[in-house]
Each structure stands twice: as structure tokens, then as C-alpha cells.
């Protein structure tokens, strides 16, 4: 692994994320924080869409449920942040495993529809579930930031924790891609029936990857909403963000770690530019939609696919 150039590209990326806000200040940190969250969502969604070929339209449910459970653990049960992170990730991963064994019996469009149903069912359940604060959600009191040394320090710590989750997402995507397990997933993506006849235990593989792809987004959800100070169901389970994660993946190129990471980063920058620009702020959705349509129609391989077509070198370096 240490001899592969792409491993060092990943290391350099993480170092850049750590160093840049230390010199650039809080403004840079805020932008990079959101970019890192987007990259985490795209990288983990890539495990399903890019590696396994299953279009998960509802990946946001991991992020939202992780956030909800984590914030509940912190505010109501008084858990420290680290325990809430692990607890939320474990519960979400187990739920995803059970759910995955069920809904992954569906293929293609049916699976995509079911994942939308899962988001909406979870959102409406959480909105009605009083322990989670119902539709108004939960607020984090200042005292919750105290163990981290106060709100200012907490923001820095949460930032570095998100970067740690980002690093883990990069490494996870990279290691699965180069593993025997990953080879089985690719076989499922290309032809599930053929894969099973070659000995790949498709139902189990799919449920495991669905569950694995939920862990780090759940942690990102805890951190995002902990920093946010409030979590509301409408915001935590926003189907649009789920689909934006797919857009990021398409933009960068599905199936590659590099593409997913680049797509998440580029999309955040692009969105930030549209939202702040005087001309485009009213039309950011229109422009994002037009961009998506152009990618789908004319460059379905995304940026990585486009690079691979021109230089065979990138195919070997960018994984």
C-alpha cells in the first residue's frame, strides 16, 4: 500500500485539510468543514453505487439517524461526544444490516424506490417521536461543549474529528477497492447472477457493504449537528441532500475513491459560489440541475472518466 502513489495522494489531501484552516482561519475552516462532510457522504455512497451498482437514493438516512441518535445521547443521556459517536455508528450500522437484508432483495429501480421510502418513513417517524423532540428536534445546550473546553475549542475539535472521519472514508474506500471483498462487489455490480454462479455470496455481500457504508456518515451526522447546535428532522433527513450526494459522485466519477472525493469537494465549492454570487443566488438550483443534466447526458463517467479516456496513466494512478 505504501508504494502506491494514490495512497500518498490521500495522505497529502488529509494533511492539507488539517493545515489549511490553521493558517487560513475560521472562514477557511467553515468551508472545509462542509466540504469534508460532503466528501464523506460521497465517498461512502460510492461503496454502494460505484462499487456494488446499487443506487441508494436514501443514503442521507444514515447521516440523519446518526445525528439524531448521537445528539440524543449527548443532550438527554449526557454521554460524552466520543461515546455518542461510537454508539450512534454502532446502532446505525446494525439497523442498516437488518434493513439491508430486506431491501437488497430488490434490484434496480425497485431498490432505489425502497430507499426513498426508507428516508421518508424514518423522517416521519422521528418527527413524531417525542423523545427525539418531535418535529422541532433537539437543541444542544452550551454546557454540552464544556467538556471540550468551551464552544470555541469545541468547534476546532469537531473540525479535526470530521477530518479524521474523512481520512477513514478515504482509506476505507481504497482498502475495499483493493480487497477480495471489493472484487466480489465489482462482480455483483457487473452482473449479479453471474457473480453468484461464480460463488459470490451476493445477499450477504450487499447487506455488509450497505451496513459498512452507513458507519462513517452516521459519525459525520453526529459531528455536523453537534457543531450546528440543533437538529431538526426536516433538515436531518433531507432527501435532496441524498440526491446531491449522487450528483457529487457523478461529477467526480463513480467507482473511484478519487472521483468521489473530488466530486464532494468540487460540489461544495461550486454550491458555495452559486449561493454567494449576486447573479446566481436565486438560480443556484437551476444551474446545479442543468449541470447535472449535462453530466448525465454527455459525460456519465464524470471528471475521472473523462481523464481516463484521455490518459491511460490516470487509470493506474487515481483509484
Amino acid at each position, binding site marked *: 500500500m505504501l508504494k502506491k502513489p494514490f495512497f500518498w495522494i490521500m495522505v497529502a489531501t488529509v494533511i492539507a485539510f488539517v493545515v489549511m484552516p490553521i493558517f487560513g482561519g475560521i472562514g477557511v475552516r467553515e468551508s472545509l468543514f462542509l466540504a469534508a462532510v460532503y466528501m464523506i457522504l460521497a465517498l461512502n455512497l460510492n461503496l454502494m453505487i460505484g462499487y456494488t451498482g446499487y443506487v441508494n437514493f436514501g443514503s442521507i438516512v444514515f447521516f440523519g439517524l446518526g445525528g439524531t441518535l448521537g445528539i440524543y445521547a449527548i443532550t438527554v443521556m449526557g454521554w460524552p461526544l466520543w461515546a455518542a459517536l461510537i454508539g450512534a455508528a454502532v446502532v446505525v450500522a446494525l439497523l442498516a444490516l437488518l434493513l439491508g437484508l430486506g431491501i437488497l432483495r430488490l434490484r434496480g429501480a425497485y431498490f432505489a424506490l425502497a430507499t426513498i421510502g426508507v428516508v421518508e418513513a424514518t423522517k416521519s417517524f422521528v418527527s413524531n417521536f417525542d423523545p427525539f423532540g418531535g418535529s422541532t428536534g433537539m437543541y444542544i445546550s452550551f454546557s454540552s461543549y464544556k467538556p471540550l473546553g468551551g464552544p470555541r475549542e469545541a468547534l476546532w475539535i469537531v473540525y479535526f474529528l470530521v477530518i479524521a472521519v474523512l481520512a477513514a472514508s478515504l482509506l476505507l474506500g481504497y482498502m475495499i477497492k483493493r480487497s477480495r471483498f471489493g472484487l466480489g462487489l*465489482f462482480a455483483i455490480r457487473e452482473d449479479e447472477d453471474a457473480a453468484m454462479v461464480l460463488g459470490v455470496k451476493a445477499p450477504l455481500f450487499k447487506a455488509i457493504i450497505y451496513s459498512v457504508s452507513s458507519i462513517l456518515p452516521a459519525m459525520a451526522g453526529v459531528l455536523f449537528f453537534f457543531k450546528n447546535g440543533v437538529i431538526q428532522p426536516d433538515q436531518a433527513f433531507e432527501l435532496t441532500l441524498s440526491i446531491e450526494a449522487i450528483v457529487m459522485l457523478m461529477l467526480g466519477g463513480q467507482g473511484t475513491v478519487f472521483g468521489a472525493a473530488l466530486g464532494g469537494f468540487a460540489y461544495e465549492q461550486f454550491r458555495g459560489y452559486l449561493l454567494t454570487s449576486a447573479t446566481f443566488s436565486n438560480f443556484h438550483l437551476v444551474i446545479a440541475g442543468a449541470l447535472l443534466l449535462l453530466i448525465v447526458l454527455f459525460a456519465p463517467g464524470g471528471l475521472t472518466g473523462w481523464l481516463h479516456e484521455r490518459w491511460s496513466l490516470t487509470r493506474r494512478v487515481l483509484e
Partner: protein
Amino acid sequence: MTHLINVEGVSKRFSGVQAVNGVSFYMDEGEILGLIGPNGAGKTTLFNLVSGVIPPDEGRVTMLGEDITGMAPYNVVNRGLARTHQIVKPLNDMTVLENVTVGACFGREKLQLGKAREHALKVLHTVGLADRKDVLAVHLTIAGKKRLEVARALAGNPRLLLLDEVLAGLNPTEVAGMIEVIRTVRKETGIGILMIEHLMQAVMSLSDRVMVLNFGELLATGTPEEVANHPHVVEAYLGDPNMAEKLMARQ
């Protein structure tokens, strides 16, 4: 004695059509059994029933004494049964080597990735695809894809190989090449091979025994010579009463 595979009275209906009806047969290690019959006789369905792709309505399939009836295909592979597809199913966006490595990784031996790759290379040499190992499977010719099917199935070191029309659609040179591959496989590994084939001379020359399926039922089983002279087979399938002589003469 326990046979390599023993199939007892398997049947399958599809919405009113009896695709396979009470078929029984057995095979032993090192044996090549040819399966012939007109289109729609239920040959591929029988393959699907044996390899776990479709569970049978009735009947029993045992492998080396173990009941594998209705097992999921990946578990059947685990017991050492591998198959190819009549309509080839290459893993398109993966290289030839990766395709075969999948077979090696998840076949009977469950090799680790590095070992699997080495083994896959060996198998690619056997089937004559070694020079194309880095090509994406989608870019292979039809003959190449058929060889890939065989290579993937072989890579898991099966005890029994089911070949579904691996010669169909190939030109005479390619047919000769593929027959050579099958002979090599039998010589080098000594596994059992069950092959569906329409190309009569090939079946008759390769097989130790031949069975004939018609309307889902077993019409006859025996040596190539016996089968070719069997009156029912001549009537149902070969059509020409002199066909048997012609086939035997070609050998």
C-alpha cells in the same frame, strides 16, 4: 457407491409448461457426459436446477453424497460445481484477469487475492487467453467470451464442470480450439464434465456417455454409439435414420 453427482427425478414446471420431468442421472469423476436434445427440450433448465440457479419442484440432487437440492448457486459452487452460460455473461467493465480472479477467489478453494491472481493466470494459459489478460471483458470476441466463461468456471478448481453450449456460434477453427481446451482440462484435472452441445460430431467424439432429453424427459442414455442408434433418438432428434452412421463415420 456415492457418485460425484447423483440427480434423482428432478422436475420443474413454468406456469403450466413442464420444462423438466423426472430426470435422473449420475456422473463419476473424470467422466464426460454429453447432454443433447432439440431446442426447448429443457437442457438449460436442467443445468439451472442442478447448479442452484432455480430450485426444482421435485427430486433430489446430491454431490458426493451431500444433498445440494435447492441450495443457492454460491453454495453449490462451494461444493465444487461450476458452470458456464449459454448466453455469455462477462463482467464487462473488468479485465479478463479480474474476471477469472473472481472465479478463483470465490470458487471451491476460496483463494486469497494474491494466490487467486496467480491461479487465474495459470487457467488463462490453459484456455489460451493469457495474452489478452489486461483487456476489458467487454472487448473480447464471442469466442474469447466463451473461453472466458470456461476459464472463470475452472478457476475455482471445481470437481464438476457444466458447459452450456460452449461451441455454439464459433467458426470451425474456434471450435477446434475449444475442443482442444476441453480435452486439456480433462487430461490435466481429471474432473467430471457435463456438456450441453448441439454440434453432434463434437459431443460424440468427446463424451464417454451421452444422454438425450426430449420434452423435458430423458429419452435415452448410453455410449455415443448406443445413443446414435437408439430408435427413439433417431426419430425425435436426429431425424435421418442414417445420421448415426454418418456421425460415427466422421470420428
